[in-house]
């Protein structure tokens, strides 16, 4: 769930998906679902000529969205769920914990996620960055009281390391997005990013209890739910803020979230 919100933030929701070439092509929009064939096509648009015109500077990168009808329904459903369930929970969390406390909790959970970043740095051959991640983890764990304080920000070499994840690793390996898909609760994603999401989930120590909950009574099993649930809860305010940023003043919130997701993931892969 936590991951959901994270991805949503920059995309406006969360994701997995499609052959998204970042090549700017004026054909892209025509390739994605023919909206004009759907309801609301009051009048055919005059033919716009593609070319090298500066007006074409921002032609949308190719997005494969064969599931658009399903995705739009899921997008609406998620929006309702955020409104009815997650926003009240998020507000309650913000009321219960002052901002400095929430910041410390965020820092600690992000620090624990070190294996996700380290493994994906290594898988991408970014060994220097993997070393920096290790240094950051040690500095914050030892000097920042288990990661509650991000003291690594005071070390220039460790202050601003782009976080690697499995979606980026797959992209580096040449795997395309695949179809864009809106996941239940998690939001915007693509086939590739969904696989990445699952891999990152398994690499995140806060979820490990769920994989090793063999023996013991029910009480012991219940305890394994606490870290992942807390992780989801603490990430809600930021994720909803990101979702709002992508959708609040949008002309078409679904397309806005999709565009933001694709652009953001392309940038994350470039870093």
């Amino acid at each position, binding site marked *: 769930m936590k991951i959901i919100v994270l991805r949503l933030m*920059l995309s406006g929701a969360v994701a997995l998906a499609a052959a998204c070439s970042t090549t700017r092509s*004026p054909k892209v*929009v*025509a390739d994605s679902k*023919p*909206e*004009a064939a*759907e309801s*609301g*096509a*009051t*009048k*055919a*648009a*005059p033919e*716009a*000529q*593609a*070319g090298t*015109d*500066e*007006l*074409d*500077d*921002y*032609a*949308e990168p190719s997005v494969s969205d064969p599931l658009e009808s399903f995705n739009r329904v899921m997008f609406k459903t998620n929006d309702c769920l955020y409104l009815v369930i997650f926003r009240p929970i998020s507000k309650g969390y913000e009321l219960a914990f002052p*901002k400095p406390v929430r*910041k410390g909790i965020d820092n600690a959970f992000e620090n624990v996620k070190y294996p996700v970043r380290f493994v994906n740095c290594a898988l991408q051959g970014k060994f220097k960055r993997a070393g920096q991640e290790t240094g950051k983890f040690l500095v914050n764990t030892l000097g920042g009281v288990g990661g509650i304080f991000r003291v690594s920000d005071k070390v220039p070499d460790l202050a*601003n390391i782009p976080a690697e994840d499995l979606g980026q690793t797959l992209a580096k390996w040449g795997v395309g997005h695949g179809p864009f898909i809106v996941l239940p609760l998690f939001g915007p994603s693509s086939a590739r990013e969904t696989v990445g999401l699952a891999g990152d989930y398994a690499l995140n120590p806060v979820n490990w209890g769920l994989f090793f909950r063999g023996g013991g009574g029910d009480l012991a099993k219940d305890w394994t739910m606490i870290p992942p649930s807390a992780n989801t809860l603490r990430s809600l305010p*930021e994720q909803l803020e990101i979702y709002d*940023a*992508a959708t*609040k*003043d*949008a*002309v*078409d919130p679904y*397309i*806005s979230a*999709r*565009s*933001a997701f694709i*652009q*953001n993931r*392309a*940038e*994350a892969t*470039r870093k």
Partner: protein
Amino acid sequence: MISRILLATLITCSFAARLAASPEEAQKRLKTAVNEVLAVADRVANRANMAESLRPTLQKHISFETMTRRAVGLGWKTFTPAQQKQAIQLFSTLIIRSYSSKFTPGEYPVINYQKAQTPATGRVDVPTSMVYKGSRYSVTYRMEQESGWRIADVVIEGVSLVANYRSQLDAQYKKGGAEAVLGSLAQSVSRPQ
């Protein structure tokens, strides 16, 4: 003697023109714009008045005409002058409202300006690293020279504001041309906050 004066004038003008077109000048202009916006935002007591208070400053430093044109894309040429004017007015209102809502009184961003880049003649990208309300963001300002340097796009964590609206307005244009674009913008502007 006269020819020397003329030569000196020409050299001075040429130097001044080059300076005005330099990335440093664009960056300087951006810093001025950001400082002016923050100063105005800081004086606004009531958050509900933020958008209207910031509007004159933002209109001075942001080229909404360029933004709107690019956000609409190739279809822009089929808009009548009146439709273009209306689109610019609606789009700027939407952007100003969206931008203004990000400000929280009493919170100040710490901005680290990085080396400006020149992707094309008359265009300068100024990457920045911004820490705001405890979170770090990568923000690139795209500046263009048109009667002085003005902001033509803002890219936050890789997400271009103009490209994002372009993807939305393109779909509207394909549905119903200029009227559909204007209708969708008007609907977004009228949506309660």
